[in-house]
Structures are given as structure tokens and as C-alpha cells.
């Protein structure tokens, strides 16, 4: 260890093999109740469709399963262990009350096809969350059906397409700023649009004159993130919206960075026509190691007829129901109604905060990001001096001179007991360090982070190779990704065990 770290220390951790390597015949962790109907004659019922063998499925005992996953869990980093400053990912605290209420019998066990008469509670949750999100975004209508942010994007862009189609021409292109998240162009392409890049200006914002030059009647929409991926609020957003609308185009907003706006500004008030939210970012549902997410899409009235079906309506008698008769709907984007379990968690979060709490959350998120910015300014290069909102983007310009790049710094940060920030993104900043602390972090944790980043910068000056070899304290050192991709081993087999 070069510099001492106050946050983390070496600690015994258990080794653990693959579950298949612990398997042996006769071990079991299951027990079925005695059968209360005659046993099935499988040969007669299934004939040649009967399966004989289940291959290499494991046979282990319950304590082995508990230990297996408990040991594996200790090899992960998590918000519960400390700050997780991944820019644009909004890794905030996941309140445990959310988990508790989502597991209440009745909510956890409701069948999606049970009669509406006995589903009013579930429908009420969908309706209440919808109303809250419409108010928070300043939009007119919403669908909660998309299962994730990218899925929401696609849903939104299909609605853009359907809107233009209904006016006689789906149009050809979608404009996307060069600072955009990779899903934006992938989504536009999946929705059948050609992608045209839009350059940022020297302040890190959409270049409005470039937009004016590129905008024409072939353009269906502009996909903008606001604040953008540099953590900068698009100050000319009104003008951007006007330019789009003047030529019949739509303004799509990627809501990934909504944590900078909730209770302070509403996309519906600054010209956005359609946007998606990420309940797993802004509204505290857990990331769970990469899902499940939930990506509601909110729209203005002009796009309402195109929402995926069904939508929830209030009947004259005050009860809630699903409405399927939506002739202009883009159709379904997912079976059933979306990731309902995430709706419960997000709504619990909104209840726990209320209007005051949500505003405070946004303020704290922005305060924390600016505190880090101030703490690291001068240590790391700040490519854009424009004020930061909820996240700040530095670059590795100074450290690169010693051959140390953003990914190397990130790996060293692991030794200091922090999850790395987002590396090498946005693409317009070479060697970006994208840092989003969220509102969840107390000052003490932020100070430890700043101290760690400063210490790493010193290490780069003193002994760059040491940083290049990081991480030093993890169970395993840097992994050979080239080998993994060249000869993919994607499953265990007895012979490679």
C-alpha cells in the first residue's frame, strides 16, 4: 500500500467454488408435501415428450446454498457499504421500507389476470404513482409499462414515430448530442431512425446554431438529456424546444438525470414533449446488480393517444380499470403492466419524502456534487467550467501525462474502499471521470472520497506503475477481458471445472 486509506482495510474473505463443484448425488435442499391426488403416469401423459435427465443441475444442501451466496455477496461492492459515485447512474440509498411493503402478501402475490374487482389496491398504486410522476415531470399523461430506462426510451421513440405517422410522414432522422448516453442512438436506430450527431458548444451544451442548421422537416425528434451527461443544465432549453417545434419536430428528454430537477424544475414546463424516467435512479428502487429497472414514459397531450395499452382509467363509479380500446396506441411493449414491484418501491419513496423531502433531496444531490467539484478542482482537470448540477465531470488529462488513464485511477479507487465513478464517458471528454455522489452521502463520506482521490493523484506523481497495477487489495487482480472475449466460456462444464 502506498498511501493509507481510512475507509477500507484488508479483511479475511472466504473462498468459494462454483455451485456445481460442490454438488454430489443425494444432497437436497427441497421437500415437497405428500401428493393429495393420484400419482401421475408420466410415460402415459407425456409419451416421448418425457424428459429423462436434467444434465448437470446441482445437488446441494441448504446450508451450502446459504454459504455459497453469502460468500459470493461479500465479493461485491454495494451502496450499503459506501459511496457509489457512478455518474448518471444515481446510486442512492435504497430504503428498506420499500422492500418491506413490496413483499406484503396480496401485493407480492397478486396475479396480473385476476379480476379488476379484486385488484383495486394494485390499480390504486399504479394510478397514484402515475399521478405523482405526472406532477413531478409537468407532463400530461404517462405509461408505467416499460421495464427499464432503455425500454422506456424505445417506447417513447415508437410514440414519436406513431405521432409523425399519424400526420402522414414518420420522418427519417433523430438528432442526438455527442454527449448522449449510448442507449439514445441505439434506441433511435431500433425505432427505425437514422441517427445524426449534434455537436456540443465549448460550454458543454447543445450548440443551438448547429441545431438550427441541422433541424429540418426530415427530423422527427431531438433526444436530449437535461442536465446533460456533463452535469450541465441546458440553459437554452426553451430555445431548443422552439427550434424543434417550429419545424414540427418533437423534443425527447432522457430522464436519467432527473435527480437534479425533482421539485425544482419540470421538463413539461420547458418544452419537453416526451420523456422517460428511471425509477431505479431517481426514485430509489434498487439496482440489484443490474436490474430490474423500470422506465415510465411521460408525454404531453399531443402524444397521449399513442401510449402503450392498456392504460389505467377511473370509471364513473370511481373504481379503476384497464382500458384496452386505444386505436392509436403503439401497442404493447411488455406483457402485463410493467415492473409493478418497482412501482410500489418508487411510490413508497415518494410518500417518505413528500414535496419538501423531494425538493431537499434534489438540493442535497446538487450540493454534494458541487462539494466534490470544489474539493478536487485543481487536482484533476475540469474540462468544462460551466456550473455543475448533480454530477461533475473531470478528465485524466494531468494523470495521462504519466501514462495513467481514467480506468487505472478507477481501479485504484477500489483499493480505497470506493466504487469507481463512471469512466470514459461522456465521449466528448477524453478520459472522463464522471462523478455523481447523490443526496445520500453524508459529508464525512464525501470527505473520505475527496481524500482518496487526492491521494491517488499523489500516487500517480510518485509511482504511476503502482496505480497502473491496481487494484491491489481485491480478491482477484485485473481480469483478462481479451481472453474472455476471444474464446468465450459462458457456462460450466464438468471438463472445464
Amino acid at each position, binding site marked *: 500500500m502506498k498511501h493509507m486509506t481510512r475507509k477500507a482495510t484488508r479483511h479475511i474473505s472466504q473462498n468459494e467454488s462454483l455451485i456445481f463443484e460442490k454438488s454430489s448425488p443425494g444432497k437436497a435442499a427441497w421437500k415437497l408435501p405428500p401428493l393429495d391426488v393420484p400419482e401421475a403416469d408420466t410415460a402415459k401423459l407425456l409419451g416421448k415428450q418425457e424428459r429423462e435427465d436434467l444434465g448437470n443441475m446441482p445437488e446441494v444442501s441448504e446450508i451450502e446454498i446459504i454459504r455459497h451466496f453469502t460468500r459470493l455477496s461479500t465479493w461485491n461492492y454495494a451502496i450499503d457499504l459506501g459511496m457509489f459515485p457512478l455518474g448518471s447512474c444515481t446510486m442512492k440509498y435504497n430504503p428498506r421500507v420499500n422492500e418491506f411493503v413490496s413483499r406484503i402478501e*396480496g401485493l407480492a402475490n397478486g396475479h396480473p389476470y385476476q379480476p379488476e374487482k379484486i385488484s383495486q389496491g394494485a390499480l390504486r398504486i399504479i394510478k397514484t404513482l402515475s399521478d405523482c410522476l405526472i406532477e413531478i415531470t409537468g407532463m400530461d399523461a404517462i405509461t408505467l409499462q416499460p*421495464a427499464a430506462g432503455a425500454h422506456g426510451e424505445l417506447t417513447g421513440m415508437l410514440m414519436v414515430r406513431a405521432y409523425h405517422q399519424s400526420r402522414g410522414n414518420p420522418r427519417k432522422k433523430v438528432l442526438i448530442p455527442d454527449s448522449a448516453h449510448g442507449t439514445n442512438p441505439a434506441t433511435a436506430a431500433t425505432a427505425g431512425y437514422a441517427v445524426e450527431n449534434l455537436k456540443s458548444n465549448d460550454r458543454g451544451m447543445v450548440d443551438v446554431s448547429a441545431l438550427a442548421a441541422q433541424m429540418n422537416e426530415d427530423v422527427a425528434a431531438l433526444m436530449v438529456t437535461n442536465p446533460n451527461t456533463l452535469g450541465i443544465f441546458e440553459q437554452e432549453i426553451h430555445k431548443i424546444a422552439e427550434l424543434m417545434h417550429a419545424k414540427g419536430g418533437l423534443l425527447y428528454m432522457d430522464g436519467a438525470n432527473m435527480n437534479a430537477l425533482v421539485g425544482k424544475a419540470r421538463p413539461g414546463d420547458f418544452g419537453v414533449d416526451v420523456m422517460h424516467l428511471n425509477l431505479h435512479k431517481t426514485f430509489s428502487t434498487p439496482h440489484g446488480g443490474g436490474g*430490474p429497472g423500470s422506465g415510465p414514459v411521460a408525454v404531453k397531450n399531443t402524444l397521449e393517444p399513442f401510449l402503450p395499452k392498456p392504460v389505467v382509467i377511473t370509471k364513473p363509479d370511481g373504481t379503476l380499470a384497464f382500458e384496452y380500446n386505444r386505436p392509436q396506441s403503439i401497442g404493447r411493449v411488455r406483457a402485463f403492466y410493467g415492473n409493478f414491484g418497482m412501482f410500489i418501491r418508487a411510490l413508497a419513496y415518494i410518500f417518505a419524502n413528500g414535496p419538501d423531502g423531494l425538493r431537499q433531496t434534489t438540493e442535497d444531490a446538487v450540493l454534494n456534487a458541487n462539494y466534490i467539484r470544489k474539493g478536487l478542482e485543481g487536482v484533476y482537470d475540469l474540462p468544462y467550467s460551466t456550473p455543475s448540477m448533480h454530477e461533475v465531470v473531470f478528465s485524466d488529462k494531468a494523470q495521462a501525462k504519466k501514462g495513467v488513464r481514467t480506468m487505472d485511477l478507477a481501479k485504484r479507487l477500489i483499493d480505497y474502499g470506493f466504487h469507481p465513478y463512471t469512466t470514459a464517458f461522456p465521449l466528448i471528454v477524453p478520459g472522463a471521470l464522471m462523478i455523481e455522489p447523490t443526496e445520500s452521502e453524508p459529508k464525512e463520506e464525501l470527505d473520505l472520497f475527496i481524500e482518496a482521490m487526492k491521494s491517488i493523484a499523489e500516487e500517480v506523481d510518485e509511482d504511476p506503475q503502482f496505480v497502473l497495477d491496481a487494484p491491489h487489495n481485491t480478491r482477484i487482480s485485473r481480469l483478462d477481458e481479451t481472453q474472455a472475449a476471444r474464446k468465450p466460456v*459462458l457456462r460450466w462444464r464438468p471438463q472445464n471445472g
Partner: protein
Amino acid sequence: MLKAIGVRSVDDLFAPIPAECRLDRDLNIPRQMAESEIVDWFKLRAKESGEGYTSFLGAGAYSHYRPVIIDALVQRGEFLTSYTPYQAEFAQGTLQAIFEFQTMISELTGMDLANASMYDGSTATTEAVMMACRISGRNSAVIARSLHPEYREVLRTYATHQGIPLKTVSFADSGRVDLEDLRKLVADDTACVLIQSPNFFGTVEDVEAIAEIAHQHGALLIVSIAEAVSLGIVEPPRAADIVAMEAQSFGVPLGFGGPYCGVLATKEKFVRQIPGRLAGQTVDKKGKRGFVLTLATREQHIRREKATSNICTNQALVALMVNIFMIVYGKVGLKELAKQNLAKIAYAADQFAKHAKVLFASAPRFNEFVVETSEDPYAINSRLLGHKIVGGLPLKKFYPELGNAALWCCTELTTRSMIDTAVGLVADSERAVRSMKEPEEQGVAR
């Protein structure tokens, strides 16, 4: 902190937002609530959400027992509150779990490899069709009418906008895909044939016969599986090129429809066309075994508009539930579990057949069956509801041609007495209709 930053108030930090964009009032949402109030509010909603009802619903969402260790383990903060494992050194727990998941899904589906999971069965099925179009260089699909109707709707949404024509193959009297019709529909420009097995009616398809027809024309065969427990006793679709599965049955709560766990599995030769995340085995600098997300060059954050899909999450935590479930039951338990499901359905179908018409009886089925009644199933169900029983799913919404048919499901959790009660009530309905009809018929004769 404000002092350190060099501003006087938090408001100064929001100065970059132009005044006309700012919200200068409170959000009109419910006031802040205490934890006890939040719990109470949701408990009330739970009471209004079918708590305490016995259900015979399946149709793509199945009620199986969830071993308690699943929730004990997935609620560990290191799983619950971690991120996508891009920083592999710091996420080996999640990565190894995904690798084990991929292995078991491959074993169970009879495929060479599987991805780390998809949003759900409907989107996995849709992605499978787009994958087949990329592999074959063709641009149309033949889909079974016995595929889950909502999966078909999702596929249609995507296909419409991608310009992929879809043709629908009907089902025969057996409930299975009509092979004659299929032969007519598959052509040399067909990218894939898409079926579900066990299909929406619970009927197990003759996958080999369908594969033969698809492959004769150079089309791929995609098999969608909505009831994963079937894989314990039903031969997996080894002749398929892609298997798209909903794994909800493996330990994932019904949760009013989600989150669930889609999966794609395929043959080795198609690995570079599969969308979604993949965990692969490799070594670290010291030669120690470890796992990483691999083949990322297929994905959106590298390829942007040229990616195989715009997907950038899986359903990691739900996949972990599935993972634990598969291990708890394992090689022997999954088979025994599937056998119990089969036994329940065999008993239930026999009982129903004594009083009403059980359709598609000639082909093998797993844990669902279709019952045709004389009375409208909605009317029967509303009476069942009075007994706190949710009856089978009326099919006329999806299949008007099936008239008064309903799809009934039993699992290992369905008790004999539940079945007997439901059968008794359906039998009452049949008797009532018959006794109403008889005097009428006599009247006509006279």
C-alpha cells in the same frame, strides 16, 4: 459545505436553471409520511388486491412455492444495492452468480449457452425474432397463434416499426400447431418460426416436427417457454435454434405481473448475435479464475446505433431469485416438482371432464388445460369469486373462436380440495344450464 463551495445558499447552486424553467411552488403530491403510515397505506392496498383468494390462473404467470431462503439471500445489501458488474474485481459475487445462472439455464433448455437475462418472456421472445432476422438475413416470421397473446402483441409492436411481416399459424384440434398450415406459410424468405411449448393452452408441441419444417426452408426455430417448471419433466426443445423463456415460475413472486425474468438461450454458433449481457470465465493476472461481462462489442454502450439491441440492463436480482430456486430444487427436486404439477393437472382435468368439455385432450399437456362450459365463464367466475376462488382465464378476449372456453392452471400449491370445490361449482353451472335448456327443448318438440 456551502462555505467550502463558496456560495451563500443552496439556491445559488440552482442559478444555472433559467428563472422561467424553475418551479416556484410545492409539488402537488401527497405530504411526507412516516414509515408506519407508509406501511399502513400499502397494507390497505394489499387487502384490496385479492389477498386470501385461491386462484386457478396461469397464462404466463404461475403460482409456485418460493423457498424462504430466496428472499433471505437476495435482500443482502451486497446483492440488492450493487450495480451492473462492470468493475469486475469488485463484483465477482454478481458475476459468478450470473455464470451459474447461464449454466443452469443452458442445461435445462438443452441449449449451448444462455444470456444473463432479459426484461421478461415477452421481450425475450421479441428479441429472439430480431436476432433470427440478423442471423438469417431474412425479414419475416411465422408465429403460432398458440403463443401467449400478449407476447404476440409485444412482438407486433416491435415488428411493425421494424418492417418485419408476421404470419400467424393456427392450431389444430389437438391444440398443437397445425402442421399443414405451417407448411403452407413457411417460405424461403422466412427468418424464423416462433412457437411456444407448452403453448398458451398448456399443450406440449411436437417441436421436432416443427423444427423439420422450419429448417427445410432455412428458417430458424424459436421456442418460447412461459412455464419454466415444465422443463423438469418435459423434454426441452433441443431442435430449436433459440429458446426464449420466462423464468418467473422459478421463485419469482407473481407481483401483479412483474418484475419477472426473461432469458435467451441459443446455439454456440449464434453467440455473437445474442442480445443482452453475458458473463464469461477468464483469469486474472495471477492466473486465478474470475468472471467478467464479455462480448460487450455487441452492446449499445460500445456500438451505439449499431448495437444488437438497445437493451442495457438485465434483471439481475430477479435472475438471482431464479438462480437460487434452481439450486434449491436441483437435479432431482425440479423433476419431482414438475411431476407434482403434472399429477395435479391430470387429476383436475379428469374431474372437469366429468362435467364439462376439456378441449385439446389428445396432446400431452403440462399444468394448464382448457375447459369449455355451456355458461359464459365470466358468469361462472363471478360466482366462484363469492367463494374466494378465482376461476380459469376466460379465453374469448384473446380467442373469440373458442367461445365459452377458459384456461385453468394447477400447480403443486393447488390442493385437491380446491380442485374439488371449483369442479363442484362448475358442475352446478352445467347442471343449471342443462335443466334450463331441457324444458325449452321439450317445449319446442311439443
